[in-house]
């Protein structure tokens, strides 16, 4: 069965590649927004299979990568407190702050726990009434409804010892930010499949119309990505700029209404700082006033945070599609997943880490050959 599936996928992939080759007549720059898409593209070498006219650049959709350093330091300061149980998704634990990572905080006696779901933290809070349980709420719109439900339930149950340290970001403002940048090169986007499973795609329609960029909401498997690329290339060649939905098996125009309602009930839209990029206005969520007693930023006023990013790091330009990981002099030498200097190397979904993990620092490949 496995063999048949792979065989079928390979035939579809070849057909899509043929169709992309037939459609393209001139150079186009397409950005895949989501880090999961980047991971898939680099793992399967899809960029090498495309005709030379098409350049894929990698977007800012890696939440672990774009969580700002001062927020990481804030998390570490809270996690070090003896009265706190600090809970997080596993991929945040290796992210280095100004001094060490959460694993080191744990080794030094901090009570740091990896959870599968934010809902697990409610049980931890119930079982440990003498401790303050803090969950590090990072992520895009895909994760926001889960974190919103956790804090909503905590309030409903009167769990006063549960709080969220919120560093939530949203995709559409980051796309707008990239398009408004004076040296922008991106001409079309593969939209984030699971973000749109929650949010639908209505927010993307004014962006496509205003900036005249095609956007194809796209899944994560090789065949999805090739189909998304074909949809955007067709639009580019025909001079259209619309939102199309490649990922129809998971995404509807309005998304999940109950999830959007929960986000709106718990969060307000706020300015957020993105690691490697800087502050983007109205680009994320913060807890609204009704949930102030569950806001770790208010409960633990961490002060005196000063951070500095290494000057050599070009992750900001990588996140905006201006440069590739291999353009960086530190890539694969000073900067590796074990010793990351910047945003795009800290998570496996970051473009630099994906390039490194699949050996792109070791070989030079003739693209499109």
């Amino acid at each position, binding site marked *: 069965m496995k063999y048949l599936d792979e065989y079928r996928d390979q035939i579809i992939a070849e057909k899509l590649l043929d169709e992309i080759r037939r459609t393209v007549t001139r150079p186009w720059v397409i950005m895949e927004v989501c880090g999961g898409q980047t991971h898939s593209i680099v793992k399967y070498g899809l960029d090498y299979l495309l005709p030379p006219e098409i350049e894929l650049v990698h977007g800012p959709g890696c939440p672990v990568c774009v969580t700002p350093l001062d927020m990481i330091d804030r998390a570490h300061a809270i996690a070090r407190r003896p009265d706190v149980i600090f809970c997080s998704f*596993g991929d945040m634990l290796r992210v280095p702050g100004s001094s060490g990572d959460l694993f080191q905080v744990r080794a030094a006696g901090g009570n740091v726990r*990896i*959870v*599968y779901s934010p809902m697990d933290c409610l049980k931890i809070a119930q079982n440990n009434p003498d401790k303050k349980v803090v969950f590090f709420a990072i992520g895009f719109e895909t994760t926001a*409804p889960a974190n919103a439900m956790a804090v909503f*339930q905590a309030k409903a149950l009167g769990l006063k010892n549960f709080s969220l340290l919120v560093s939530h970001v949203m995709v559409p403002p980051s796309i707008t930010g990239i398009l408004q940048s004076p040296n922008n090169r991106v001409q079309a986007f593969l939209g*984030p499949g*699971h*973000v749109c499973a929650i949010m639908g795609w209505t927010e993307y329609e004014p962006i496509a119309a205003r900036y005249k960029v095609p956007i194809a909401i796209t899944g994560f498997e090789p065949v999805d990505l090739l189909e998304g690329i074909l949809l955007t290339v067709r639009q580019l060649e025909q001079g259209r700029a619309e939102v199309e939905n490649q990922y129809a098996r998971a995404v509807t125009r309005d998304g999940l209404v109950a999830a959007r309602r929960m986000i709106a009930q718990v969060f307000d839209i706020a300015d957020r700082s993105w690691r490697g990029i800087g502050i983007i206005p109205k680009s994320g969520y913060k807890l609204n006033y009704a949930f102030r007693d569950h806001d770790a930023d208010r409960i633990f006023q961490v002060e005196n945070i000063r951070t500095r990013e290494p000057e050599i790091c070009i992750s900001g330009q990588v996140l905006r599609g201006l440069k590739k990981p291999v353009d960086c002099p530190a890539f694969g030498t000073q900067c590796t997943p074990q010793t990351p200097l910047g945003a795009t190397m800290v998570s496996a979904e970051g473009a630099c880490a994906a390039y490194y993990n699949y050996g792109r620092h070791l070989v030079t490949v003739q693209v499109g050959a």
Partner: protein
Amino acid sequence: MCLAIPGKIVEFHENQGVRMSKVDFGGITREACLEYIPDAKLGDYVMVHVGFAISKVDEEEAARTYQYLAELGQLTDINSPDIDTVEETPDEVP
């Protein structure tokens, strides 16, 4: 981070007013909240992200996606030995 893993709903329950389920991911069973997919039924396949169902899928698609995520090494959300398991609180007896 935004990836979702397909699994089969094998049990429904309610936890303090929230609609929850047990979802089987190729042999590993985890809790998933169904509040956002209100029409999910027993035996349905759903895509689960951080313990929340975010869309329904059909069985064949679920199998293909699962195999693909395994190939990518992206099943750590459910099977990582680093995840701290939380003691179940016994259901309240009225």
